[in-house]
């Protein structure tokens, strides 16, 4: 592309091509090795000699080393700032500290696929250590997943068809326009790297500690979702009646639910700490994309537990495990294909891989179909036909541009939808048939059995998922069927999820009081009575104390209290063989604490800066009720002038002024707000910041004061420096030496030339003056009244050209510029210098900030609940692993 510039090939200077080539090579190695491993593991599952197994293991280890190689090469490129690589230029910059270099690693799509692949190979290596008949078929699926993931990094193109996108593409091939920069005319195009001195940088919102650990946690969760799916397939392969797959699948489904849940809340914590929407959960499609597989995996884990303990519901266990893995793929498709477009504030851009992502989703559904039909005749012929159609249709729709023939492409679309639905129905039908005997009618669940209630709980979790799924998928349905449905708002989710969470909570609370198969009436009736009674009493007290009287909120409060009480009571009353046995009670209890925290911190949150003004009375709706979202909305922001105090509810807040960050942080401006509690007299300072990012515009990041029982969250909505200001006038020149005083033309300001400093720079000598300024009148001349300004100028040492860098202060209404400098004596001492200073003035503006402050009561319960929940999961996992070991020993 660059060859239009010169006939001879250009020699590009200073590029580390060898490193990128190594990167390409390890990507190909990882891809080929995973392909070979998948095939060899498949063969090994049908062959007992161990020959295929040995090779398969070697291939998989080779693949893992390839993945590690990609990680090392990509990190080295970022670490050594090789901006000749597009990925490095796009996602990093010189100023980034090392821990944020790790975040650049997964800012881009390619990096996040790499992260996923890395975890998958780690999990694969763990699974390889186990000696069981499942190893070969399970690893075949793991390796197949790695084939899919590593193909996302291949970066091969045939015409308009892409296969993956490589993180080792060169900047000059991705952005040939960079070779057209005018300055390269004199430097030579081959020296373009001398001009590209810094990268685009990491999105400042992602420069946060939580963004270093949140994505790896989330992707570890995603990667673990593959394992139960692989075990289910391996189980089906052995035959629909096999149950030995359940124990290992249960362990991994617990790992997945625990880790994914932790990852989701970490993301929420990041959003709360660094975004200014005011909260930790906004029902953003990207958040929902990770919540959906979590909800389903939690349901699947319970279904596996039922199957393990009673042998029943094998069909549902298989189905839910499959669905949750498909949802992981669907989530990836949603967030990576660009289909969410305007639906999300932070969805990723389209790399042109949506076709490939869709293909994987369909390929894995096809795989489920294929394996579920493993018993029936004629499977392979139909299977191949299906596989070809599944691959062919998305491929055709990719190759043929939409404009070619609308009739044809809509035919393809409907064909695809039809094929997708028949595959799905075919899979479910066959799965039902295969697992039929295990679910015999005599084994029907009794209403006093634990499995009955646990099954219901799983169904209610799925109900909650159904709403999230259909709401989040609206952009997909709009695209498929040409609807014009708007993207749902957070309130649309809250309204429904508030009620859907209640049966889930109730079942999580009472489930433990039932035994598997059958429970003696006195046990569960007594259990129910005492826990419900205690919870009712406690929730009335809490509702009174927290003033939560609205029916929906009160019921939610009651159910979350019931969830906590019933599980705490059960854990205290029930003796277990090992303390690890209380894992499920603690996880359930933690979830209750989390939901209670969610309720209180949202229902009782208070906007401290809210005010009511003239004409701001809330309107009434048709029913005559006060409409809180009336035409005149709440006025949620307050203005605070510098040096003055404003009441923010029970706080007296003073804006002390702004300061610029130092060093690498100089892009941030901090606003010092001093809060004083008018009741207790306690005070603290919050420093919300804004960043005038040249690429993203002005960004505001909140600052939060954490107390045990509440958080005070504050962010800047507007700042006075954004106002358009009137021009300066009354310009006046004074000729002065150091130490001399002068005034502006209206004599409102007194000024003094304080000191002088100079330092060399590549563009010439930079001279900086320190000028003290104060308002004339009472108290002027006192040192404390002065403000200091630093006008500068630059002299080109060769040409002698003089360039002034004036300073302006809206606060003082002062413009100050050095017009000229004269050296009076050959001896260049400071006192022999004479400066011509120009002053201009205008009406001074008092700096101000517009801020929003929110009090989140008991938000710590959300985080504490999460920790308890993760602890509970860890205990349950440890218990199940121990059981598994004892079983094998």
């Amino acid at each position, binding site marked *: 592309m660059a060859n239009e510039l010169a006939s001879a090939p250009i020699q590009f200077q200073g590029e580390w091509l060898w490193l990128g080539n190594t990167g390409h090579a390890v990507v190909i190695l990882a891809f080929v090795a995973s392909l070979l491993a998948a095939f060899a593991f498949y063969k090994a599952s049908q062959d007992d000699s161990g020959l295929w197994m040995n090779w398969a293991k070697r291939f998989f280890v080779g693949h893992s080393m390839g993945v590690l190689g990609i990680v090392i090469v990509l990190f080295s490129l970022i670490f050594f700032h090789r901006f000749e690589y597009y990925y490095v230029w796009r996602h990093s910059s010189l100023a980034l500290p090392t821990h944020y270099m790790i975040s650049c690693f997964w800012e881009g799509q390619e990096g996040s696929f790499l992260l996923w692949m890395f975890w998958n190979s780690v999990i694969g290596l763990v699974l390889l250590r186990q000696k069981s008949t499942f190893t070969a078929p399970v690893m075949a699926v793991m390796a197949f997943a790695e084939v899919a993931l590593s193909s996302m990094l291949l970066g091969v193109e045939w015409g308009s068809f892409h296969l993956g996108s490589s993180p080792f593409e060169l900047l000059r091939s991705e952005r040939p326009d960079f070779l057209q920069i005018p300055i390269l005319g004199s430097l030579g195009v081959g020296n373009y790297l001398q001009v590209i001195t810094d990268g685009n940088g990491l999105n400042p919102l992602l420069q946060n500690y939580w963004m270093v650990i949140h994505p790896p946690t989330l992707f570890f969760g995603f990667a673990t979702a593959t394992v139960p799916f692989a075990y289910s397939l391996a189980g089906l392969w052995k035959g629909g009646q096999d149950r030995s797959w359940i124990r290992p699948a249960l362990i991994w489904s617990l790992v997945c639910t625990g880790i994914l849940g932790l990852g989701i809340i970490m993301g929420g914590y990041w959003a709360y700490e660094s975004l200014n929407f005011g909260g930790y959960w906004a029902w953003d499609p990207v958040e929902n994309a990770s919540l959906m597989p979590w909800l389903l995996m939690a349901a699947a884990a319970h279904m596996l537990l039922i199957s393990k303990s009673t042998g029943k519901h094998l069909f549902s266990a298989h189905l839910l495990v499959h669905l949750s893995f498909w949802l992981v793929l669907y989530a990836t498709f949603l967030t990576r294909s660009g289909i969410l477009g305007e639906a999300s504030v932070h969805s990723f851009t389209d790399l042109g891989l949506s076709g490939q992502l869709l293909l994987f989703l369909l390929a894995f559904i096809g795989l489920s179909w294929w394996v579920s039909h493993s018993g029936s005749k004629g499977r392979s012929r139909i299977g191949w036909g299906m596989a070809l159609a599944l691959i062919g249709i998305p491929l055709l729709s990719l190759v043929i541009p939409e404009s070619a023939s609308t009739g044809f492409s809509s035919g393809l679309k409907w064909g695809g939808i039809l094929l997708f639905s028949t595959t799905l129905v075919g899979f479910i039908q066959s799965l039902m048939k295969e697992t039929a005997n295990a679910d015999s009618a005599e084994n029907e669940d009794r209403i006093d059995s634990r499995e009955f209630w646990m099954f219901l709980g799983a169904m209610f979790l799925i109900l909650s998922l159904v709403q999230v799924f259909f709401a989040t998928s609206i952009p997909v349905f709009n695209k498929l069927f040409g609807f014009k*449905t*708007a993207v749902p708002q957070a309130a649309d989710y809250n309204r429904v999820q508030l009620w859907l969470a209640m049966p889930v909570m109730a079942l999580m609370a009472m489930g433990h009081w039932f035994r598997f198969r059958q429970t003696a009436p006195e046990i569960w009736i007594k259990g129910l009575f005492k826990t419900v009674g205690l919870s009712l009493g406690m929730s009335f007290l809490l509702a009174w104390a927290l003033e939560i009287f609205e029916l929906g909120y009160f019921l939610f409060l009651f159910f979350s209290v019931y969830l906590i009480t019933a599980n705490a009571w059960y854990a205290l009353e029930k003796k277990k063989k090992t303390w690890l046995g209380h894992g499920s009670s603690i996880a359930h209890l933690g979830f209750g604490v989390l939901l209670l925290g969610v309720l209180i911190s949202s229902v009782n949150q208070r906007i401290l800066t809210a005010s009511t003004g003239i004409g701001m009375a809330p309107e009434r709706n048709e029913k005559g009720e006060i409409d809180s979202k009336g035409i005149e909305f709440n006025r949620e922001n307050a203005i605070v002038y510098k040096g003055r105090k404003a009441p923010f509810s029970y706080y007296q807040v003073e804006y002390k002024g702004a300061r610029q960050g130092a060093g690498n942080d100089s892009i941030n401006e901090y606003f010092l707000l001093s809060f004083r509690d008018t009741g207790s007299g306690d005070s603290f300072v919050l420093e919300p910041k804004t960043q005038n990012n040249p690429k993203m515009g002005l960004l505001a990041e909140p600052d939060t004061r954490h107390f045990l029982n509440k958080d005070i969250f504050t962010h800047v909505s507007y700042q006075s420096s954004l106002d358009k200001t009137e021009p300066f006038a009354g310009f006046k020149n004074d000729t002065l030496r150091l130490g001399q005083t002068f005034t502006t033309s209206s004599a409102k300001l007194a000024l003094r030339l304080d000191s002088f400093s100079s330092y060399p720079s590549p563009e010439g000598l930079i001279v900086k003056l320190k000028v003290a300024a104060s308002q004339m009148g009472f108290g002027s001349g006192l040192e404390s009244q002065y403000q200091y300004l630093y006008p500068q100028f630059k002299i080109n040492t060769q040409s002698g050209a003089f360039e002034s860098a004036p300073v302006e202060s809206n606060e003082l209404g002062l413009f100050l510029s050095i017009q000229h400098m004269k050296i009076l004596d050959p001896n260049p001492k400071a006192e022999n210098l004479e400066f011509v200073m120009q002053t201009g003035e205008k009406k001074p503006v008092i700096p101000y900030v517009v801020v929003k402050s929110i009090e989140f009561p008991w938000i710590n319960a959300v985080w504490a609940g999460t920790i308890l929940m993760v602890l509970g999961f860890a205990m349950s996992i440890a218990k199940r692993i121990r059981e598994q070991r004892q079983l094998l020993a």
Partner: protein
Amino acid sequence: MKPLHIALIIIAAIGLATVISLYGNTAQYVSFSEAEALSQEHPFKEYHVVCKLNKSKPLEYDAQEDANRLVFFAVDSLGNESQVIFNKPKPQDMERSEKLVLIGRHKSGVFYASNILSKCPSKYEDAPVQVGTAKN
């Protein structure tokens, strides 16, 4: 009928009702004139309008006068123009925005937005060429 089946049928019914009510309650993207007509029928429902900021007309925001009032004009995809009042400070990337999604109600010729989603042309992705000075 076994108890589990009854429960499942109830759950399925709730699920169906949830999805139907989701599509029934979720707003459609409309034009300003449609929003005006619909707002007369259902004055308390909110509508979504996809539009562009009219940059030739003044965008009024004076924090010292009222920190919670932004007034501007927007043009929807059909070319209808409407005055918009938003009771929040000016979103920072308002002028840079390529497209706005306004959520709110239309009342006597003015669209009262309760929320504004602004879509910037190239938030971070296609930032202008980063050109530094030549290395020595």
